[in-house]
């Protein structure tokens, strides 16, 4: 199978004293398409930031493509959760998407024509090319999200991480986005944090449920234990595009 995309062993993390994540371990092969589900405050975004090397684990190891996250991050694409930071910032759509072409090796040099062509193609792909000169702050949340996705794709990543990419986009683009991700998944490993268990289950190959600990399911099935652990309440599931109920309804806590 080659080097795993992600290999995490006995990971612990805390912002101060109370552990946010404990005993997390899983291995994700390259070419996988993993959904991370779980309740708010359960540590999903924290886990993502650990894998990206933005945060350092307190204990345990993370290997991304066989290396430390910091050494692998040039090959990681990332779509952050909130795109409404800095709304008054003077930056255009094109400039923002171009940030995906930043790299350490070309530090201090201008963007090349090739960079610009790649970004132009991606903006067309997410339907934002007509807005390329617009200030980012003047766009709707869904439009901004598309630009952030284009920016992450501009990295030409080996692994693409998305933190609730469909939180503020319309249904139409949501399906469109997963079609894009599905297409990309032929070459790129995709990891997506999501609440939309229903939509995502048609595309994902594996599911991890995070609620301080992590439960990993390699076949993309969402098991009852996962849901119990994650939400502690009845959840309707639509699995693999077939509108059938996976789980029996059960009583809340």
């Amino acid at each position, binding site marked *: 199978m080659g080097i795993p995309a992600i290999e995490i062993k006995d990971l612990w993390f805390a912002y101060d004293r109370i552990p946010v994540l404990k005993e997390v371990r899983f291995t994700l092969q390259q070419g996988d398409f993993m959904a991370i589900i779980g309740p708010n405050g359960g540590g999903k975004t924290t886990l993502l930031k650990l894998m990206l090397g933005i945060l350092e684990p307190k204990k345990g190891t993370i290997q991304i493509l066989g290396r430390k996250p910091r050494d692998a*991050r040039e090959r990681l694409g990332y779509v952050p959760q909130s795109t409404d930071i800095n709304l008054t910032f*003077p*930056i*255009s759509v094109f400039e923002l998407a171009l*940030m995906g072409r930043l790299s*350490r090796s070309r*530090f201090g040099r201008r963007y090349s024509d090739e960079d610009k062509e790649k970004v132009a193609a991606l903006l067309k792909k997410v339907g934002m090319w007509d807005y390329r000169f617009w200030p980012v702050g003047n766009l709707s949340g869904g439009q901004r999200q598309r630009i952030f996705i284009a920016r992450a794709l501009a990295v030409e990543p080996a692994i693409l991480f998305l933190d609730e990419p469909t939180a503020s986009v319309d249904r139409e683009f949501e399906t469109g986005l997963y079609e894009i991700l599905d297409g990309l998944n032929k070459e790129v490993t995709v990891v997506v944090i999501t609440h939309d268990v229903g939509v995502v289950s048609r595309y994902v190959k594996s599911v991890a449920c995070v609620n301080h600990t992590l439960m990993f399911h390699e076949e993309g099935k969402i098991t009852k234990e996962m849901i119990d652990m994650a939400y502690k309440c009845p959840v309707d599931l639509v699995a693999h595009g077939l509108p059938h109920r996976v789980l029996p309804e059960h009583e809340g806590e």
Partner: protein
Amino acid sequence: MWEALHFEFMRNALAAGVFVSIACGVVGTLVVVNRMVFISGGIAHAAYGGIGMALYFGISPLIGAGVFSVGSSLIMGAVSLKSRHRTDTIIGVLWAVGMAMGVIFVDLTPGYHVDLMSYLFGSILAVPKSDLYFMFPLDLVIILVVLFFFKEFLAISYDDEFARVRGIPVNALYLLLFCMIGFSVVMIIRIVGLILVIALLSIPPYIAEKVTDSLGKMMVLSSLFGILFTVIGLWISYRFNLTSGAAIILVAGAGFFLTLALDRFSLSDQSQNAEV
């Protein structure tokens, strides 16, 4: 106004005004978009400690201010990168301790210090030619650094987390920015004094941000606004014999409120149009 240019001090003052405005426009833009206005105020006031110390030891106050200003900006930079939530405390402490040190050193220095007011409120009319030889290269260095790392500064200012994931040395760039703020503050102290540094660093970029949508244009425009404010302020100060630093800031302040008023006006205009 033109006859005033026969005086060398007036020509020096104008040149100093232009040089400082350019530094303010470029660095101030980064200060404003990174929300570091308060940090710059802290740096300026901490610099007073250096001025007092320089007077006590009999060296050039410019050197004292420079060392303290760059030193305190690096400390604040390091703290703000390490623990964002404690930044304001450290700023406040360095602000006050720097000022207090300055006052104590001045107390300890024998003699009469009429000149100190000029560090509090600036003395653009007393800028010697030698200061210009320090300001011009500094401008040049600031412009070159920002041009060279423009896309990186844009990236860390907008989204430092993403820049970090891309492998950009975010911390090093921030410390570079803090260095530039420190040196600019020393220049600005000469013109409007340490009490008014914040205004000259933040008002021109604020106005420029309203009318432009790119960081580069914002830098150029705020430099031009800065030049406009200093020239008008300088003229008012010369014509009516007023403190130059305060006159410059009041002109900038007038520009600020005018922008706010125009902004309001055009907003209500738009909403009216929208209703129709």
